[in-house]
């Protein structure tokens, strides 16, 4: 068996193309949902933390530290296999979506918080001195600056978390790795795994280009 037969067998490709395409869509929409809700939740948490009320900050910091410290896979396994023992049954894709969103939110919160606190205090003061409320300063002055400065790390985190959708294979989400894995087991060929790798390239190469564009577009000098 030569190399192409093992990794790019045309018959195997033809057989598994349709399920693989479906899997690509599953990976894409879970990733998109995770990135949108993770960015929004992370930004919201950073905003709440900016109020510097201990009863708000403390749970946020605890949440961010826990979510950054624990491997997402462990959390997914606990939710998916642990919760049914107390009568709570969650969809496989929902568990994947929820955990990845929370993990992304934790990192995003920390990224935003670090930038918001590193902006000159004068930015907060200039806003306050012109009669803007704390929330208005946060939304119109601090947040847009933090967002622009954070585009590279936010893009990186978003790409990383999107690739973690592969963890879904462990709990039965029909995403790329899961489908390719079953196909490999079924056919005894490595070709579905090659298809999986190509599928990730097809998804993430445009995502990389888009991220470069966004980084250039929002770059500004200080």
């Amino acid at each position, binding site marked *: 068996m030569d190399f192409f037969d093992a990794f790019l067998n045309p018959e195997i490709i033809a057989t598994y193309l349709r399920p693989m395409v479906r899997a690509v869509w599953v990976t894409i929409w879970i990733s998109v949902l995770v990135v949108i809700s993770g960015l929004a939740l992370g930004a919201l948490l950073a905003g709440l933390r900016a109020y510097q009320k201990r009863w708000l900050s403390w749970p946020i910091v605890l949440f961010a530290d826990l979510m950054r410290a624990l491997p997402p896979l462990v959390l997914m396994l606990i939710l998916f296999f642990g919760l049914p023992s107390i009568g709570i049954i969650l969809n496989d894709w929902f568990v994947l979506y929820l955990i990845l969103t929370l993990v992304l939110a934790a990192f995003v919160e920390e990224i935003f918080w670090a930038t918001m606190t590193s902006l000159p205090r004068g930015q907060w003061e200039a806003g306050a001195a*012109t009669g803007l409320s704390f929330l208005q300063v946060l939304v119109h*002055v601090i947040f847009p*600056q933090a967002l622009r400065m954070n585009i590279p790390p936010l893009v990186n985190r978003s790409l990383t978390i999107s690739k973690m959708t592969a963890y879904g294979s462990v709990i039965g989400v029909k995403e790329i790795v899961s489908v390719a894995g079953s196909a490999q087991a079924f056919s005894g060929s490595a070709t579905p795994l090659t298809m999986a790798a190509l599928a990730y390239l097809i998804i993430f190469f445009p995502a990389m280009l888009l991220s470069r564009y966004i980084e250039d577009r929002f770059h500004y000098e200080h």
Partner: protein
Amino acid sequence: MTAAQPLPTLEITALEKRFGETQVLRSIDLKVQNGELVFVIGPSGSGKSTMLRCCNRLEEPTSGAIHVNGKPMLGIPRKELDRMRLQVGMVFQGFFLYPHLSALKNVTLAQRKALGRSKAEAEARALEMLDKVGLKHKADAMPSELSGGQQQRVAIARALALDPKVMLFDEPTSALDPELVGSVLKVMRDLRELGMTMIVVSHEMHFAREAADRVVFMDGGVIVEEGPPEEIFGNPKSDRLKAFLSRVSGEAA
């Protein structure tokens, strides 16, 4: 000064400020009348910037009272404070323009969000103010494209656009290259001509001599001496003021 005085535009009464154990301001009393330009001088660490920042509560006074047109700045809810701050314009040493917004948008933001003006009204007002500081042609420029002097003039326009009753200047020219100082001082001189009430903390002694109605000398957190510029500079009474003036005359005046 003997006749019954009108309501001061800004009145500071028995103002105290402590940072922990350090007393920064001690029993400060100051009245600023409508249209007056009061210049505050003193060595660094004398508390002059802190006093200015207490006036719009960027710094929280430990005790005392501050009134703008007879209305209290202290002991009011945050919403009311936001409204009061509209009447007190502030210009910072570091300009602090919003770097993500054009000059025009820097001037319209608070007009729209804090005053509730319409977009058209806010922009018209912003252009008028930018024109006043000589920068109407830079309305679409980003702060990073402006010189320090231009940035500071936009910052002045940003404060003026809210129709404040009094303007606070916190060392407005200290961060500027010497050749850019003049353009900012010119704007301040124009404002004075227009009757704006101003408190200026600055080391520009020339400007103080020429433009101030009254000069206040602070040292060690107290007002040591105050009077018309010719008195303060020409006939200083306290030893501390004499020492301060001889120190700065080496560089400036």
